[in-house]
């Protein structure tokens, strides 16, 4: 192995994972040199970046760029879309801000308020005062995502002091935009964590203090086009819903 030229070692390392490459940089001098090379880290960075992407300044190598994107999501599209990389594969992740979502009655101050919270990455979040028709929809262009990856969409949210009306499961759906309405099968998800009811997906607490509930999954193949539409809906029960604070909808790869 000592006799292998550095670009051979770099080639070998490119076929492993970012984690393995990091480990390799502690093996020996020649390995370190190959492991830190731009050639290898370029391989883990996406080949196509979303529109409006600009690499942060002051990053000397591709390895720095990779980790910067993993740990510090970038805000694109008027700060309405956050972009980052999933660290074990380099796959692209996004979170859509509430202003980028279609929230029915969201414009009406009687029902929804727009607030700022310090622990969010977006300027404005949607806080539900009271509504009967709860419908939150988001759309994302599938070409923004990494090829050959299984993705899941999550509604990221929190409760204010006195939420109401969410004890029962609500409808979540995820489908390719343009699908016939009859063909769309919503699933039931519970926003509140009721240990008793095992019905469908449950909300989980994230490590950043927010909750998330899975709206659905989809697989992105190379060459796929169109938009993925995901929504959360509760319009059938005749009582009001209160107290939900929406951070956004996150789309990230499903890890094995």
């Amino acid at each position, binding site marked *: *192995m*000592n*006799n*292998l*030229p550095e670009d*051979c070692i770099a*080639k*070998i*390392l*490119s*076929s*492993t*994972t*970012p*984690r*393995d490459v*990091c*480990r*390799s*940089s*502690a*093996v*020996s*001098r*020649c*390995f*370190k040199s190959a*492991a*830190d090379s731009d050639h290898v880290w370029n391989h883990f960075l996406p080949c196509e970046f979303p529109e409006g992407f600009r690499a942060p300044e*002051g*990053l*000397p190598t591709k*390895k*720095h760029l990779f*980790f*910067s994107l*993993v*740990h*510090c*999501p970038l805000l694109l599209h008027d700060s309405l879309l*956050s972009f*980052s990389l999933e*660290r074990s594969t380099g796959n692209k992740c996004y979170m859509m801000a509430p202003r980028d979502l279609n929230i029915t009655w969201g414009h009406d101050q009687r029902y929804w308020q727009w607030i700022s919270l*310090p*622990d*969010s*990455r977006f300027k404005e979040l949607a806080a539900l005062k009271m509504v009967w028709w709860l419908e939150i929809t988001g759309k994302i262009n599938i070409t923004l995502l990494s090829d050959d990856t299984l993705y899941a969409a999550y509604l990221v949210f929190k409760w204010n002091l006195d939420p109401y009306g969410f004890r029962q499961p609500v409808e979540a759906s995820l489908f390719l935009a343009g699908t016939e309405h009859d063909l769309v099968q919503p699933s039931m998800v519970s926003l509140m964590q009721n*240990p008793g009811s095992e019905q469908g997906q449950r909300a989980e*607490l*994230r*490590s*950043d*203090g*927010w909750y998330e509930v899975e709206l659905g999954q989809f697989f992105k193949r190379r060459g796929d086009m169109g938009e993925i539409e995901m929504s959360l809906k509760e319009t059938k029960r005749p009582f009001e819903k209160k107290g939900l604070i929406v951070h956004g909808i996150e789309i990230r790869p499903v890890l094995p």
Partner: protein
Amino acid sequence: MSESDMAIIKPEMMKSYIWLETSDGSIQQVEQEVAMFCPMICHQVLQKGAGSSKNNAISLPQKVSPAMLSLVFDYCRFHQVPGRSNKERKVYDEKFMRMDTKRLCELTSAADSLQLKPLVDLTSRALARIIEGKTPEEIREIFHLPDDLTEEEKLEPLKNTMDDPRIRLLNRLYAKKRKELKERAKLKSIEVEEHVDERSVDDLLSFINGRDHKVVKTSKSKKKNKKKEEHKNGRSNGTCKVSNKDSRNLHSKQRSVDETSSSLGSVSNLLSMEDDIFSPKAEFEDGYIDDEIDPALKEMLDREVEDFARRLNSSWVLSSGQERQPVHFSINGNGATRRLTGPAARQK
């Protein structure tokens, strides 16, 4: 009549051969179609007219030994036949790759100097599969590589370019790991596994040692009194702010950990360092815990902590007499851990 004359007279009956000289000086001839599969040889023949006779043999690069050359030509001989199906080729390749690591390396080297890209790709992938998931120690062992990096170089592969958010991130990571360790130490029921997962042992070791192998050798009392560790040269990461009541538990664990990892020596703490290099490391500022971190960083951080908890769960080695029962943790928003039981316990 010379050989080339004979070739002109009876081209259909005489197979063309290319003459090659290997690194040890020996000269051999190989069927033309097989040898021409290698771009380097092809170039020599077409551009320089070499290889047509014994005196005019193409001298091959030093890295191509006779044994490797024969292997390379086996590969070429199979693949240069046009009629084979993709499946056949794939099956052949899988079989062909079954050789020991040393030969794989030599073969990669030889194929690279002959510019035979498909073979280089094949061997590279095979070597990548070997490297995946191994610790730096293991990789060094398998490939007989020299351990020629300085301590400092090993500990800080990613130079500190980002400042404050990452320092805070680091602090939080260690604060959380510490908390988890505390909880761990309190609980008696821990799963005992047959073999030690070296990685998490390293992880634990490094956490206890604060990533400075010298700390392993210091006495326990020094460790107990160590509240904060000053880091010179901005080298290591993390400090073990061990409070007195916890240190006892930690030390008993440290002993067992030491026993099982005695062979690892001074670089045992590196693996988890590399795992954590995954989250870039920076200079460590003592005692500064700032909660105003970007939630994305927080998220990543907490995931790492959960990862650590999971690893602790699955490979803790203790003396006998312990109940075998996995413990599930969950971390809520403000960093405290909570033990879950029953159906609510998250499957990790």
